[in-house]
């Protein structure tokens, strides 16, 4: 009766959200308020930085901000030169917002998606929004840098028969970008839900494993934020510097 299969055969709601229909449209309210919370934290930290910023000895928040800004700035300047420093705010915002979104999940819930503070990145809508923004910005920059004709010609560079692949590759960039983030954070949540769904006599192990997994999840959250921001800069760089896709 107590085989591993039956142990794990628990009802875990997947992709379940607190929904509210407004004017015939259904919104994931938990994702929205968590995104608002994360956004407020990011903006709050930003405004705190602006208020307490100093050119002499910086406080911890400033050190953290400067670390991120300098990292993104170095990546951008190394790949595209100082001309494209306008890409820095996008990279910084993506990194910081994703990081905070991933980390607000730190308090575990008792089942998935009713975490006290579920990560909004575990809802595909936020990664999609980020990836679409990156897709639009990079393609607009590519058009500005090369003009329409060379932009189109870029897909038909030799060997010409690779053109469909190049188009698909370009279209897949936002898909892979968003699903990589979503999948990692989403599965992290499911892992917590599964660990907490262990029967009561596993209690000490459940707590220990949850804590360990949660710490690892924080690490994954940072890595995913890093990867998303880095790929954003790399796609940006491809868009404005490479002749062929």
């Amino acid at each position, binding site marked *: 009766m107590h085989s591993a299969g039956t142990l794990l055969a628990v009802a875990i709601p997947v992709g379940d959200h607190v929904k509210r229909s407004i004017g015939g449209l259904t919104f994931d309210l938990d994702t929205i308020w968590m995104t608002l919370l994360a956004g407020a934290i990011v903006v709050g930290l930003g405004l705190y930085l602006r208020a307490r910023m100093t*050119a002499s000895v910086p406080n911890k928040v400033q050190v953290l901000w400067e670390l991120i*800004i300098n990292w993104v700035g170095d990546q951008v300047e190394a790949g595209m030169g100082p001309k494209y420093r306008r890409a820095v705010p996008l990279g910084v915002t993506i990194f910081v917002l994703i990081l905070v979104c991933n980390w607000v999940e730190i308090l575990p819930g008792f089942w998935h998606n009713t975490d006290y503070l579920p990560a909004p990145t575990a809802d595909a809508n936020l990664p999609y929004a980020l990836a679409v923004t990156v897709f639009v910005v990079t393609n607009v920059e590519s058009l500005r840098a090369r003009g329409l004709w060379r932009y189109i010609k870029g897909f038909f560079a030799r060997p010409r028969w690779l053109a469909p692949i190049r188009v698909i590759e370009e279209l897949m960039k936002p898909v892979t970008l968003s699903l990589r983030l979503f999948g990692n954070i989403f599965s992290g949540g499911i892992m917590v839900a599964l660990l907490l769904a262990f029967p009561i006599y596993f209690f000490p192990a459940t707590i220990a494993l949850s804590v360990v997994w949660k710490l690892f999840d924080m690490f994954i959250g940072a890595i995913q934020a890093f990867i998303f921001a880095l790929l954003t800069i790399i796609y940006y760089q491809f868009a404005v510097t490479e002749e062929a896709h």
Partner: protein
Amino acid sequence: MLIATSNFLVPGPTFVVELVIFLVVLWTLAKYVLPYANRMIEARQQTIERNLNEAEEARARAQELEEQRARQLAQGREEARRLRDEAAKVGEQLRQDLQRKGEEDYQRLVESATADIQASARRAAEDLRAQVSELVIAVVERVLRDGISVSDQQRLVDQAISEVEALSTLEGVAPAAASGAPASAGGAGG
């Protein structure tokens, strides 16, 4: 079993809300935070650069001062050596001058002393001669006046002769005693 109530990979209206939130955060950071942060970072970099430049300048200045000091030290040593050599030369000169002067003074003193002695001796001899003359005259006068006996004459003559001898002996004494000789002779004669 996992329960999916709907396909959660399909974006819904939430997507638009998320996009708006993200763009608002992006806009806020890009407009109100990052320019200031960049300015601050640049300011700090400039400060650091300036401090480094100042440190470099200070180092160069210190080196220059050190070289100057070494140069001055070398000059000072050279000057000291020169002064020492000069002093030695002057000292040697001075020593020779003093020696020569001392020798000259000595010579002069000796000559002057010799001259004095000779003069004294001469004066003593002259005095002696005068006293002997006076004595002889006195003896002669007494003999002529008193008409003395032969034994008295003999005695007077002996006395005169012994006085003269005494004076002669005095006259023969070392020149240093010459100045005292006439006085004692005079005393004996009186």
